């Protein structure tokens, strides 16, 4: 009982000691359900408002459900003249995908190099990476803007994507992961006569897809939801991402409730899908890595 290795317990959730009984269990489910309903209220409001007329939303009596579901609202953000919604969706998709692919590529390569390639000064290089973890990127947006604007990258995809690619934290996570990568697999690559580069792409990456998926999911979500940097870089509406566009609805002269909630719903939809289908990786990724964040 004293010296089981901690790792062996992690695999399976231990059965709880039974306590409470039927009443306690009912109370637990009641409390959890109430909390769940409260957590779902904002989603309910998005859907209700997005599919209602403004008259329903602003009426004297609270309408729990739209009196007449307005499916026509779905296309409205796309034909609205004040905000180029379609363009901002496209910008976010481009930025989100390229941001994710780019971050994964440079950070995983560097993480592998730092973890597995014997080089005399590797520790010093690693300290240079660790040093950036001391300074969160959000605090340095003024210096970064100064640099990017003098490069002439304001209002461009380059400006939106490239400065965000070099995440010391992601590199750190990859390094930690590769430190634990089984040495036997690399051994096999060596027997096959592969160099570092070949071993990385033919053996290491194909055997690490779960970890890549977890990091990719987290990176994509944070890229899609990012606001401060796109706000700083997107001076012209044509370079707005979806978050900047959503923000502009709130300060518009005329308030159009169903339109802004439909836009919000559309902006959240891709991520809800990501969540529903990739949640396993996401939860794994957070449980493995989030604690070190």
């Amino acid at each position, binding site marked *: 009982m*004293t010296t*089981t*290795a*901690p*790792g062996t*317990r992690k695999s399976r959730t*231990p059965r709880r*000691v039974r*306590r409470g009984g039927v009443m306690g*269990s009912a109370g637990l*489910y009641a409390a*959890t359900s109430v*909390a*769940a309903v409260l*957590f*779902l*209220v*904002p989603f309910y409001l*998005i859907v209700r408002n997005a599919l209602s007329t403004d008259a329903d939303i602003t009426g*004297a009596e*609270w309408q729990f459900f739209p009196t007449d579901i307005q499916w026509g609202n779905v296309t409205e953000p796309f034909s609205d003249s004040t905000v180029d919604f379609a363009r901002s969706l496209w910008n976010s998709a481009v930025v989100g995908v390229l941001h994710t692919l780019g971050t994964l590529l*440079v950070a995983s390569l*560097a993480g592998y*190099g*730092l973890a597995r*390639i014997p*080089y005399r000064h590797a520790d010093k*290089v690693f300290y*240079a990476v*660790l040093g950036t*973890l001391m*300074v*969160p990127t*959000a*605090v340095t*947006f*003024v*210096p*970064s803007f100064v640099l990017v604007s003098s490069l002439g990258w304001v209002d461009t995809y380059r400006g939106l994507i490239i400065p965000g690619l070099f995440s*010391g934290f992601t590199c750190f996570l990859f390094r*930690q992961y590769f430190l*634990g990568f089984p040495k036997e697999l690399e051994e096999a690559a060596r027997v096959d006569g*592969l160099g*570092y*580069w070949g071993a990385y792409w033919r053996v290491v990456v194909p055997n690490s897809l779960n970890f890549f998926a977890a990091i990719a999911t987290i990176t994509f979500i944070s890229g899609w*939801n990012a*606001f*401060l940097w796109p706000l700083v870089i997107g001076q012209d509406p044509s370079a707005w991402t979806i*978050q900047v566009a959503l*923000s502009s609805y*709130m*300060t518009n002269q005329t308030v159009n*409730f169903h339109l802004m*909630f439909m836009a*919000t719903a559309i902006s*959240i939809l891709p*991520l809800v899908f990501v969540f529903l289908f990739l949640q396993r990786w996401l939860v794994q990724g*957070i449980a493995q890595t989030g*604690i*070190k964040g």
Partner: protein
Amino acid sequence: MPTLTDSGVTSPAPSEAPKARARRPLRGNPTANFWLFTGPFMIGLAIFVYLPIGWSLWLSFFDARFTVTPSEFIGFDNYRYMLTDDGFTGSLVTFTVFAAFIVPTTWALALGLALMVNRLRFMRAFFRSVFFLPTAVSYVAASLIWKMSIFSGVRFGLMNTVLGWFGVDGIAWLAGPEPPWYWLVIVTVRLWLQAGFFMILFLAALQNIPQELYEAAAIDGAKPGWQTFRYITLPQLRATSTAVVLLLLVQAYQAFDEFYNLLSRTTWGRPPLVELYETALGENQDYGAGSAGAMILTLLICVVTLLQGRFMGFGRGEEAK
């Protein structure tokens, strides 16, 4: 009892042992390959992280308005200006208040949800997903829901509607700094967005608590409920709790999105990053003062992250895994 706990948790993983054994590396020159792998990242880091910080440090000693090429050296005037500026010092106060609200509430709610979900015997995955789902929503989208629907100051806002059912007059939640209703809006939006994420961390930690501890406690006569929670669960969660609190603190420090969107263009209730945004990218475009502010904030946060590194093992290399 405590010794049992310690030995169970801190015993080193057996996989550390074979490190000493010499092994032949892969084919190719290690040094060249090292730079092939890390080069792109390190160059990017130098250009997009280190260079801006250096440039900004340089700028912070110059008068640089509407331009990023410094004109006149003014020494520490930018720093003096920022540190005596009511807006900037006020933003540090705002952060402190915000942290005092958001850190304990998120910690408690995330832990509470994790404890509830962990005890469920069926539909556990469903409830976990429900609490986790808000993590998918952006701060901007959530701010829009909070500002335009839940805490809308008008009669048909959700909160005011609910108050109306009880015969209470509606409240203008975001209209002004007094009474400070806006804190309720700001704190609840972040609470909703973050609680599920930290619940996942607590759930993972809860499932790593050795079941034997509870059994031993039961034999020793500990009552299930508060006693086991206080003397077993909570101490076992200490590492996770510390990490969560520090993470929450650093994230609160960087709060921008919800303040910007909920309190757009107000002179009150500005956290540090909003203040910096207004200084450097607002009407004055004072990059010198903005850079000085960024340097001050960076210094302050370095203290916190160094502390965080202490607790979470950054830089301790292999053993941090």
